[in-house]
């Protein structure tokens, strides 16, 4: 029997992002899935090569709207790695605070979206309402609700003021009872249990095979977290623990994210208490030739930025790997065999961020034949890296 194809996309009805999932269904059961992304390729890596190191922070900030500080964070980590020096202590604490505030707002945003996917619009509206105070903190600290522009190679762009701290702490402490409420709403609601438990299970084995990162991996009992495994910024100076769940289903993913909210709030409060006085910028003038790798645990998982400098004003090569790139592929494992009603929530449970993830393939539009696929492009990219490296060695 020929399978019917149910399209989700090319423009997602809810996440408002270009992606295309072709669900091959047999009745209500999904038997296969084609994941097609790449509708919104923006050549960020190429553009980065024409911007100065300072400007690239603003560029990568615009990769993703939701986790807009993850990419700059990983980028400045890469610069720190390249220079081999640490940014000033106070800057590290401020970076940590911004990174964790972002996790809080991003997880609340996901929680709301998950409610919406399940047809639970009240949770959606409430989660987004309680996300507002976090955005208010951002507005107070950085002047913007999104795209905070706090990161800077060698420091942070803006200081945080001690007189704001009591208000920030109070706002965050007020958030804790709200998180308790959501915890109750998710963990005690029988219908949510029925809808999410045992649905879209990723086993530990799947997680390893698909190299899944972030909360998606932690929900399957794989406790990988860059903040713990390879501490950067101030994450090794505060007390917190990595949240893991064993289920691997949508329910575990929701629980991991909710429990991480507590940890993030905890980290921010500790950072505000411990934040030392001092400079916030080490005043980098030149970037010497070299390579640097920066990693950051974004709300969705590990972001990797690779920077190669040739002594000039801008990166010779800038390579970005966003967490959704790893996570979206795991849908192939999670969604097959489930029903269509569960497909959307499973696809959403990895908290995908397609715009971070866009990759390119070169296709002849007349024949529809693929001239170059991802691997060819990777090969081209590696060749270029090698050429540049050789050129640098020669000069």
């Amino acid at each position, binding site marked *: 029997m020929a399978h019917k194809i149910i399209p989700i996309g090319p423009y997602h009805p809810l996440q408002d992002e270009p992606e295309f999932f072709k669900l091959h269904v047999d009745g209500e059961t999904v038997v296969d899935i084609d994941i097609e992304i790449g509708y919104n390729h923006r050549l960020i890596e190429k553009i980065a090569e024409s911007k100065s190191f300072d400007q690239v922070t603003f560029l990568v900030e615009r990769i993703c709207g939701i986790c807009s500080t993850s990419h700059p964070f990983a980028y400045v980590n890469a610069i720190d790695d390249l220079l081999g020096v640490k940014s000033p202590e106070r800057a590290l604490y401020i970076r940590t605070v911004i990174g964790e505030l972002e996790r809080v707002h991003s997880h609340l945003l996901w929680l709301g979206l998950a409610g919406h996917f399940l047809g639970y619009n009240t949770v*959606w509206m409430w989660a987004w309402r309680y996300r507002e105070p976090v955005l208010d903190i951002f507005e107070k600290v950085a002047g913007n609700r999104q795209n905070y522009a706090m990161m800077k190679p060698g420091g942070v762009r803006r200081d945080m003021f001690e007189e704001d701290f009591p208000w920030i702490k109070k706002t965050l402490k007020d958030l804790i009872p709200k998180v308790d409420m959501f915890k109750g709403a998710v963990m005690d*609601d029988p219908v949510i249990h029925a809808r999410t438990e045992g649905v879209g299970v990723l086993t530990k084995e799947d997680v390893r095979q698909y190299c899944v990162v972030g909360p998606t991996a932690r929900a399957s009992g794989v406790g990988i977290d860059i903040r713990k495994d390879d501490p950067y910024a101030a994450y090794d100076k505060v007390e917190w623990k990595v949240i893991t769940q064993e289920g691997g289903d949508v329910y575990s993913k929701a629980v991991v994210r909710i429990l991480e909210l507590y940890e993030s709030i905890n980290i921010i409060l500790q950072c505000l208490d411990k934040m030392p006085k001092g400079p916030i910028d080490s005043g980098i003038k030149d970037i010497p030739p070299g390579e640097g790798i920066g990693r950051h645990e974004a709300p969705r998982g590990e972001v990797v930025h690779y920077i190669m400098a040739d002594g000039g004003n801008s990166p010779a090569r800038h390579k970005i790997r966003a967490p959704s790139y790893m996570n979206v592929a795991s849908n192939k494992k999670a969604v097959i065999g489930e029903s269509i009603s*569960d497909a959307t929530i499973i696809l959403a449970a990895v908290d995908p961020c397609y715009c971070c993830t866009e990759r390119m393939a070169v296709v002849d539009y007349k024949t529809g034949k693929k001239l170059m696929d991802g691997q060819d492009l990777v090969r081209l990219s590696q060749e270029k890296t090698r050429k540049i490296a050789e050129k640098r060695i020669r000069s």
Partner: protein
Amino acid sequence: MTRLLFNFLIYPGFLFTACFGLVASWIDRKVTARIQWRVGPPWYQPLIDLVKLSIKEITVPRSASKGLFFLSPLIGLSAVTLVSMLVWLVNIDPVSKGFSGDIIVIMYLLTLPAIAVILGASASGNPLASLGASREIKMVMAYELPFIISLIVPVIKSGGLLKLSEIISYQAVNGSFIASLSGIIAFIIMIFCMQAKLGLVPFDASEAETEIIAGTCIEYSGMLLAILKLTKTMLMVALPLFLITLFWQGFTFLSLWKYVILLVIIILIRNTNPRVRIDHAVRFFWGKMTLLSIIAVLLAIKGM
């Protein structure tokens, strides 16, 4: 004849119920908005939504079977109009007393909007719509069973009366049925079935906007979509009133608070629940609800 036409088209049939339903749907939207920390629309919003839809172009998909595609919303609308006319008349018009067996007629007519939706969705030739239609079929099969069994309860309790007006007068003498154990059980089951018949959360799988993008009405646009929406709106009046007539002594314009209570229950259920999956819904209606409705019937036979 003219009187019947007037009853059907203007009062208390189409026009009156439609206006009443628009107000009800405004209350629904406003309360929902307030629950969700939003402001909510002004009172005339449902009306101007309808007007806007009806002046828009109707797009007919190439793969659609046109006759059925156009006809099915009208089938649903006329069925609901007929139901609301019957229910209003037995309650507010002392001259017209309905006819024997009108409960059975209403029972059948109330199934028609769902069937019309299924027909229209299948006629549109869209894969998502046919998915929605298959869900709607499962849903109809699921909720009709407990609905019909609970419908027997007032009939048994009134000693075999099949005429709505007689059931009302029986209750006026002997007290409303929801005061008894079997009555209240059947009433609660009917509320759940009503939620499913209205296609509201948690039983909106056939229209699930976030899963299959409005499913059954995905291909409808313009006037036809307006008719589909109007059908749902009028059903939101007809169904609660039917329940009140059966179990709660009927109503006059003074006792419309009963309707408001039912409306608030509908709104609360829809705002405090996520959507259930279709297999869960079928299990819910064929399992717990059917069992409870059989218990209610047995209790009614025992006279409790």
